[in-house]
């Protein structure tokens, strides 16, 4: 799109970013080099961006079989799925769960360190919808059920490091599904 329609929204702290951080600053999601201790397990060869903490969706969702909504708590009620707070992580990790392998222990230590320093972990965003699109997560969960996340996000349970399976900014991806299911194709459903 030649037009820079959606500029100026840098102003609008994106909801994802806003939920990630406690402070008023936004944007800088790249951890400061040197300050972040190097992960013992180098995930950089895997698909998807390397996160400040090598959070294992495959363990949490695949092995432990946690529900997506346990962490992405507002996905069923709001446009925004929500990012788990640090407290949610620490709810399990502060006493009991310290990891089995040295690699995992090292990653969990990073989490605990961040908690103690009162610095939220600045995750890298994988899926970012263009700002002229309004995607109500809740309605899709309502229509397709709580297991429907995979429809767009792929099989997260098998992803040690999350990567983008579908380009959610490709409108054809949306429309294909809407055509198949014979639901609205009205522009103003999403664009306003």
């Amino acid at each position: 799109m030649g037009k820079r329609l959606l500029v100026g929204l840098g102003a609008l702290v994106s909801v994802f970013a806003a939920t990630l951080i406690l402070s008023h600053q936004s944007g800088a999601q790249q951890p400061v080099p040197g300050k972040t201790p190097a992960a013992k397990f180098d995930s950089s060869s895997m698909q998807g961006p390397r996160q400040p903490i090598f959070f294992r969706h495959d363990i949490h969702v695949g092995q432990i079989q946690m529900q997506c909504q346990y962490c992405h708590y507002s996905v069923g009620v709001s446009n925004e799925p929500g990012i788990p707070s640090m407290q949610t992580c620490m709810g399990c990790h502060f006493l009991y769960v310290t990891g089995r392998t040295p690699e995992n222990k090292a990653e969990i230590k990073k989490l605990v360190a961040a908690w103690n320093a009162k610095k939220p972990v600045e995750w890298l965003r994988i899926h970012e919808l263009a700002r002229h699109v309004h995607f109500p997560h809740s309605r899709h969960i309502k229509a397709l059920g709580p297991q429907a996340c995979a429809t767009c996000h792929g099989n997260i349970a098998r992803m040690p490091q999350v990567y983008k399976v579908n380009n959610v900014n490709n409108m054809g991806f949306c429309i294909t599904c809407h055509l198949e299911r014979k639901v609205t194709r009205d522009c103003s459903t999403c664009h306003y």
Partner: protein
Amino acid sequence: MAGQTEADGVDRRQFLKVLGTVGGGAAVLSGCSTDRVAKLVPYMVQSEDQVPGIPTWYASTCAECSSGCGLHVKTREGRPIKLEGNPDHPINAGTLCSRGQAGLQALYNPDRLAGPMAKNAAGTWDAIKWDDAIARFAARVGAAHGELAVINGYGASTFSSLLTRWTSALGGFITNFEPFSREAERLANRKSWGRTDLPVYDFAAAKYIVSFGADYLETWGSVVEHQRGFAASHGFHDGGMSRAVFVGPRLSLTAANSDEWLNVPPGAEVLVALAMAQVIAAKHGHALAGSLSRYSPGKVARETGLTADQITTLATAFAAASPSLAVAGGVGAQHRGAIDLCQAVNTLNEVAGNLGRTVQFGSAPAASEGYGAIQPLFDRMAKGEFQVVLVHDANPLYTLPRSGKFAEAFAKVTFKVSTAAILDETAKACDLILPNLHGLERWDDLTPRAGITGMMQPVIEPVRGGLHTGDVLLKAAKAVGGAVAAFSAPSFEAYLKGEWQKTLNAADFDTAWREALGKGGMFSAAPAAEQPKTAAGSEVSYTTPVFDGNGDYIFMPYPSMQYHDGRGANKPWLLENPDPITKITWQSWVEIHPDTAEKLDVREGEIVELASPHGTLRVPVYVYAGVRPDTFAMPLGLGHTEYGRYAKDRGVNALDLLGAADGQGFLPYVATRVSLARTGDYRKVARVDGMPRQLGRGIIQSMPIAYAAKGMTPEQSYKAAGGSFPESNTELERTALEGWRERQLEQTRVGNYAADNMPKWGMAVDLSRCTGCSACVTACYAENNIPTVGEEQIFRRREMSWMRIERYWEGGTGGEPLQARFSPVMCQHCDNAPCEPVCPVYAAYHTPDGLNGQVYNRCVGTRYCSNNCPFKVRYFNWLKFNDTAWPEPLNLQLNPDVTTRARGVMEKCTFCIQRIRGVQNTARLEDRTVRDGEIVTACAQACPSGAIKFGNVKDPAAEVVQWKRDQRGYTMLEEANVRPSVTYLAKVLHVEPAAFHGSEER
């Protein structure tokens, strides 16, 4: 849990400690909120959690003026994005005026000070730390030994009582200053009834309203409450409506909404009031009849420019319509005879039997002091009686006339302190600035009148480095020691709670406190109305007011609806929202009658020099038939020399022409004669209106009340009055349109979006309720991220007001009275929309639910749609307005649910589609259909008159359908066959059918 292994050095205690400091579960969950936010009590959403994507609402109180309207603050992810009225609040009942809504731009104003500042020897500012600032303040206050003056502009509240007690503990002197403080009314009430409190006026109950220069819909008193009352009585309902008359030299917005404007010279209003009282008293044999006999209509008619018959008729009708209501005391009638005028109106209300009915004493609006109190204080400053002065929430060096040498007197004080959050004129003259927090950032309360106390709670972390002045006082008290050290509360929040604990007196204070916060305050029933006793010797007298100078014209400054006493001048929403009468934005003007303009050979935009004995100023002319030929009128509020980037050096300050010395106890605003000199310079006036007349296009239609009561349609009414009514749809056109919308829907029908199940959104606007106040316009700007474009772009007609108030003039020639017609005009969402077929990229298209959709990301900016729109409600984003309109941190006000549009895109009203979709999503989640009234557009929500109704027109039970069925309904430009979704209900006029021509409308 004992004996559990501790993971990586975090023990349970530390876990809880971290939790506590970060603020508890809610705060951590909500991400960007902080401990302050987490402790708040949400009102709408019962859960304390802030759920991303879902707004959290907090109740608060508006501090933009002393009316004390209740607020509901919409916050998203921890930042307020819109201010709406609190539906439970007895004053504003869910609505809010433009100035109140623009409070958000005071919160996020880019010119807010980053922290305390001290003036150094060179006269420039040093940024200092708060501890240092408070230490300096305390040292000076402690060493002043009672030579301390405090000017407090904040209304009656726990804070103000703390400040009063703090000042008296230090042996200082305090004035509760408000520029428009209605002193003349208080002084008149003392003369009439021996009491200085003000009554509350019940406009809703009044069947006949006469205002003597009081702009009750604009700036006089509690305007939102007045507007609600006015709409209730003067809006056409059950076949009738009240009648309103305005007596004064200028056709203000209030006058324009009245049924009759009696154009009386400044100073002669009192004679009309006295003559009316005389007629009524004589008829009823009232005790005052004797003393009033000197003022019979026959005796005073000549001076008022009215006929004796006119006054007698008015008085008779006024007395017959019981209860009626007469009000006086606006700034525009504040000449040297203002006390006489207010007293005469008191008498009028008394003889008409309105006391205790529409004029209710007993729940007095909080008393403030004005010029009568501040002038002696400055005299004392000039004599060097004060070492320290503290100015809080006031800007006296701007709001007092320059000729009074107040700045010079102020400079005589050794150490001057201001708590202004933005460097204003007074702060600039100070030595220390301790910026206060905004009302949305602090704990506070406000008691606009007995029985109503609104609460404020911080809904956001301080945007800039301010500190609550209450905290400053408490900390300084501790540092000073002595008597003032009795204020031992650790913080103002604790002090406030402590004081409330005394008043609430509840067994469970915490619950009662949280309830009050959630509700927005404590609203007890108003105290029983007291019947004032006529004071002995309340003989009405009258002296002709004198005017300074010997110029040919009386100078009449009046408070601007948008800027009030000048405090609104730094908010772009208010600067861009045009004055409802003149439609001028971003600058000052002087109003001159067309005959006078012709005589003086001046034209619109010509800069003239006005000279009074007290000063001169140069200002562009606006030729206006609604001002007397012997009077020049000019709005107050602009002409700041400081006060941030938006206000500084914009326009001129009308106070520069006024005198200051006066011993009457108030500032007579209308007390100067001026002369005019042409300068030959020219400055374009940034007006946003187009053609001032309707030229028979029937855009804003009206009908006589007799026809409306008979249930006639506007068309029948025009025909009955002998007007022509163009044949709107020819047979051919009708055939062409047959089934058009159905075919459109057929084409868009996909899957379960079957057209039959789809709602069709529509709107109805009752023009007999709309006053043109423009609150809806500000609401639209706030809701839809509409950029303000500035004066330069308005010259080029590039304003982006998706919703505008059209103002057309009627009459004014050939002996017919000059009348205004107001109507909000937003996208009409035509069924047969001309904008849609011309779009080459399908950006403008018809949605299945009946909207004229506009897909911003498709738009390539051909502007064909705008060219084809008969209503001109499509606005093209010519420049990078979204880069310039919201300098940080103003950008924080943006609504995340609405796309901000870039350059080269056509924008328009969407019936607040984000609200429609939001409610539809919620309804779907709850497995139900959308309820009627659940979707409220921003304009309908804000409207103090309740003139706008929105809903699904396919639902026969919907309120909007009831409105649309009203016989007064019509659609704009019906002959264009565009089939709008907006129905207007014709304005109803108090006019005899025989006198109704409607020739200009139709």
